[in-house]
């Protein structure tokens, strides 16, 4: 039996080791001496650690623990200076810059960009838009009085609004979250931007946009107003969209008329799949899956991102089942399946998802 001996080398008993170090064969002797030296080192290390107290162990553990890089949001903000040529935009701020910008729109997109990254990372372990740590590039002050915000396939662009009907398109965290989520969708299900798939694409952006806003404001499903773009569309009683009551975000607006979004499938708008037809009404019919999400989240209670958000994110990232040309019925089936996988087949969550889609008459 091997005693008082290095466990890693105990296949050679001590008496043999002593013989070997006295051997006339220089190579064998060298190996044996080395081995004996390591054994002493090992035994002395073990003796040392035996005598350490908890505090010393903690300090030593902390010293030896391998440091792994924690992902963090990487942002860049560019100023278009009212131009439309993005190659001429100047870098205003980037993550790590010590000097904070004074520009209000820059501050808005930094805050909302960080909120968006945090929601995706902290809740879903997703590192940025592509889940590979992509730098989030945001371009502000695009064009003159430009009343829109868009995702161009690799970055976000925001106009200042005409200041009469629309305020700055950086004024609402949900709008910024909406645009960034178009990026996430592009890297996941990559839903077509036409007909029902396009409406689902828009809906995912609204759903995650509203969760980013509610999380930033620490609002539960009851406290939240479920409005998208309430600061972008000027006037206290107006917003761009309502997930709680699609079709009511603005009523009798002097320029825009009344919100055309349906809440239920029986009011689905059959619009032409053309530019003028909003590619089959992607911004209009999105009211239907939006309403399904709202009802699901509301019935589950608490914070929208805790359960309903997890289910919808699992659906968005299940690229084997959520295909590029998915329909509302497809998403209904996938969200029911995901709720079952996450919370159990007979869970209240599955029932809430089914009730959500039933309320939207899908």
């Amino acid at each position, binding site marked *: 039996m091997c005693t008082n001996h290095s466990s890693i080398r105990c296949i050679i008993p001590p008496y043999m080791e002593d013989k070997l170090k006295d051997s006339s064969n220089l190579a064998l002797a060298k190996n044996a001496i080395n081995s004996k030296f390591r054994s002493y080192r090992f035994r002395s290390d073990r003796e040392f650690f035996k005598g350490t107290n908890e505090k010393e162990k903690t300090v030593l553990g902390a010293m030896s623990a391998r440091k792994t890089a924690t992902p963090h949001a990487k942002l860049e903000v560019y100023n278009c200076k009212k131009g*439309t040529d993005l190659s001429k935009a100047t870098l205003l701020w980037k993550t790590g810059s010590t000097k904070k910008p004074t520009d209000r729109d820059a501050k808005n997109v930094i805050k909302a960009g960080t909120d968006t990254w945090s929601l995706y990372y902290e809740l879903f372990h997703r590192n940025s838009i592509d889940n590979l740590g992509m730098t989030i590039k945001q371009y502000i002050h695009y064009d*003159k*009085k430009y*009343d*829109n*915000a*868009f*995702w*161009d*396939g690799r970055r976000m662009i925001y106009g200042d609004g005409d200041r009469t*009907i629309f305020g700055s*398109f950086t004024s609402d965290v949900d*709008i910024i979250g*909406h*645009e960034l989520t*178009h990026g996430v969708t*592009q890297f996941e299900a990559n839903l077509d*931007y*036409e007909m029902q798939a*396009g409406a689902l*694409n828009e809906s995912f*952006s609204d759903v995650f946009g509203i969760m980013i806003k509610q999380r930033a404001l620490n609002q539960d499903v009851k406290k939240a107003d479920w409005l998208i*773009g309430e600061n972008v*569309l000027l006037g206290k009683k107006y917003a*761009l*969209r309502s997930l709680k009551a699609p079709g009511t975000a603005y009523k009798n607006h*002097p*320029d*825009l*008329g*009344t919100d055309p979004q349906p809440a239920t499938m029986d009011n689905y708008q059959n619009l032409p799949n053309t*530019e*003028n037809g*909003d*590619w089959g009404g992607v*911004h*209009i019919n999105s009211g239907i899956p939006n309403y399904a999400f709202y009802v699901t989240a509301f019935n589950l209670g608490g914070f929208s991102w805790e359960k309903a958000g997890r289910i919808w994110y699992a659906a968005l990232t299940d690229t084997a089942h959520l295909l590029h040309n998915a329909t509302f019925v497809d998403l209904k089936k996938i969200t029911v399946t995901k709720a079952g996988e996450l919370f159990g087949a007979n869970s209240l969550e599955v029932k809430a998802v089914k009730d959500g889609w039933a309320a939207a008459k899908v």
Partner: protein
Amino acid sequence: MKITLLRSGGIIPMTKKAETDVDWTQDELNELLQIIGVERHSPGIARDASSYSLQAGDRTLSIDWDKIPAKYKKVFEEMKDNLKIEKKE
């Protein structure tokens, strides 16, 4: 002749319009439309983006703003500055 610039699309779907009178000949207009006209059959990769089209007589054609020749730029820029939302009931 009367020409109309239209901007459509965006995060909230709306159409904006601006009209102006120009003294271009039909040949000039045809040549311009050949340069700036684009066939847009799909929404492309951008999301919530807006796009422009030009209406002249009974023709309406999607246009590429970046291809507008320098000599026509001023007319188009002025129309863009005067775009008004097409009101809905």
